[in-house]
């Protein structure tokens, strides 16, 4: 049974990743040289990092807020909200991209034209890309924080309030320290998810080389243009970041269980 599980993971994940790394270094560092001397590639990596950081920052704030809302308050429509938060998990990112287009596109979206009239171009621009990334990574922080909030209960928060703390002080001194590791965990997961987002961004960004093209989109383009070496090199960078994320998470895990 153990062997079967190992074999399954190896053939599904391990082997392809190892092959990818092998291919990347097949000609030493030359494909890296090629890839990173291309300004479009470096620009794409920067765009990816920028979009991801924004999306993660926004998702962290709203994720913690939503988690608090879901756990600590009773209101009509709570279950509906909870279901909506999980929606991105079950929706294809391409569909998410299309849905955002329908609402925010400057040409035929419902919100797009009025926003563009005020100088805010959403689609084929950073705001739309950040929104798409936020959308796909939305559940990650919320679903990490909710169980921890449920577990700690609101005793400590009530105690703090009875000792004279106001809402901000309770949040800053009691709630946030208690859910700290869950938040960090959620942030790392959403970062990994955001960096690798492809489908939704492909639609929403317009895939404009040197402008709105992100790293995963570069990989596809290079691959389709038979510049496979460069595609592998950029892929390797993305894999490396994912591995780092997993490392950070696994280093954090024991701390979480100790506290």
């Amino acid at each position, binding site marked *: 049974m153990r062997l079967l599980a190992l074999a399954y993971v190896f053939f599904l994940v391990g082997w392809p990743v190892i092959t990818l790394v092998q291919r990347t270094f097949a000609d030493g560092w030359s494909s890296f040289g090629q890839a990173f001397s291309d300004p479009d590639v470096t620009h794409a990596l920067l765009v990816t990092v920028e979009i991801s950081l924004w999306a993660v920052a926004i998702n962290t704030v709203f994720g913690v807020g939503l988690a608090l809302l879901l756990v600590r308050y009773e209101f009509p429509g709570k279950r509906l909200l909870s279901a909506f938060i999980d929606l991105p998990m079950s929706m294809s990112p391409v569909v998410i991209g299309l849905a955002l287009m329908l609402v925010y596109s400057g040409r035929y979206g419902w919100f797009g034209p009025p926003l563009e009239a005020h100088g805010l171009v959403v689609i084929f621009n950073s705001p739309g890309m950040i929104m798409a990334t936020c959308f796909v990574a939305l559940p990650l922080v919320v679903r990490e924080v909710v169980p921890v909030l449920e577990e700690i209960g609101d005793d*400590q928060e*009530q105690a703090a309030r*009875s000792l004279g703390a106001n809402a901000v002080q309770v949040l800053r001194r009691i709630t946030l320290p208690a859910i700290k590791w869950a938040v960090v965990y959620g942030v790392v997961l959403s970062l990994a998810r955001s960096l690798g987002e492809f489908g939704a961004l492909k639609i929403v960004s317009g895939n404009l080389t040197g402008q709105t093209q992100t790293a995963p989109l570069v990989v596809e383009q290079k691959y389709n243009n038979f510049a496979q070496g460069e595609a592998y090199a950029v892929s390797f960078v993305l894999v490396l970041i994912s591995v780092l994320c997993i490392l950070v998470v696994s280093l954090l895990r024991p701390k979480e269980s100790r506290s």
Partner: protein
Amino acid sequence: MSIEIDGVNKRFGDFVALENVNVSLPTGQLTALLGPSGGGKSTLLRIIAGLERADTGTVSIEGVDATRMSPRKRNVGFVFQHYAVFKHMTVAKNVAFGLEIRTHGGLRPPWTSRRLRDRERMQARVDELLKLVHLSQFADRLPSQLSGGQRQRMALARALAVQPKVLLLDEPFGALDAKVRKELREWLRRLHDEVPVTTVFVTHDQEEAMEVADEIVVINEGRIEQVGTPDSLYDEPANEFVMGFLGEVTRLGELRLRPHDIEVGLGPDLAGSTPVDVLRVTRVGFEVRLVAGTEEGQEVSVVTTRAHARALDLEEGRRVWLTPSNGTATVPAMKSLRVG
């Protein structure tokens, strides 16, 4: 009167937690809210603390109407059954929490003399409190390194730190084992004599209430059954419920009374004595418990001392005569509205 509760009602959905509760709790005393689980005593305490809001009625604390005041403005200390310690802070930080919240440094940087003075004052107060609850040597530990009793003492110090006008304890010893519970109970009584802040605590343990409290409020099914000192409640229970809740009760003829308030005689010498046959004899430590049957088939429990039982040579099958002792607490059976 320190806490005035006037016409308080509280429902949770269909469940009536409190029904038209009126009570005044005296200043500077230790009051117990006593009653069975689910009777509304914790709800009343949480309404006093502002953690729960009454549907109707008013609460005033030290003459100030607190009905709509938020818990942080009421200046009450609250101690929770499960301690509610701040897990990520050391013991000293836990105790200092309320003080830090209240100390406004404003925009002054931390090295200014005013901030330094504040910090020194806080430190001194924390030291003093930790000494009071015998936790000085644990100041730098995390709560997870303390035992249950120590955590509860820390929670008490934390609540006392802000010098509350009222200290409220919700089943403070409920989660502790019997031995620690007894120790803490005595310790709470001594602490209250040292620091005489108006204290209200919730308990379902009548022994705890009788031992610790100056005054007991008996609450059942959302209503107040009786208010009084432990002695007056024990000796003059207002009804069958109070009598039954504060101690063992048995029936002798038409009377309800305590098993140790029955005198056992070998002949019908005393007026009003009832002839019974001893059915069972159990020795528990220094006392002897009898179950006796009357001619009508009623079973009566009697508690007597070991020496007395030996003198009367009590054993199963023996005929004896039972009489209520003089001046005992009795409640005529069937008189009260509710049966406990």
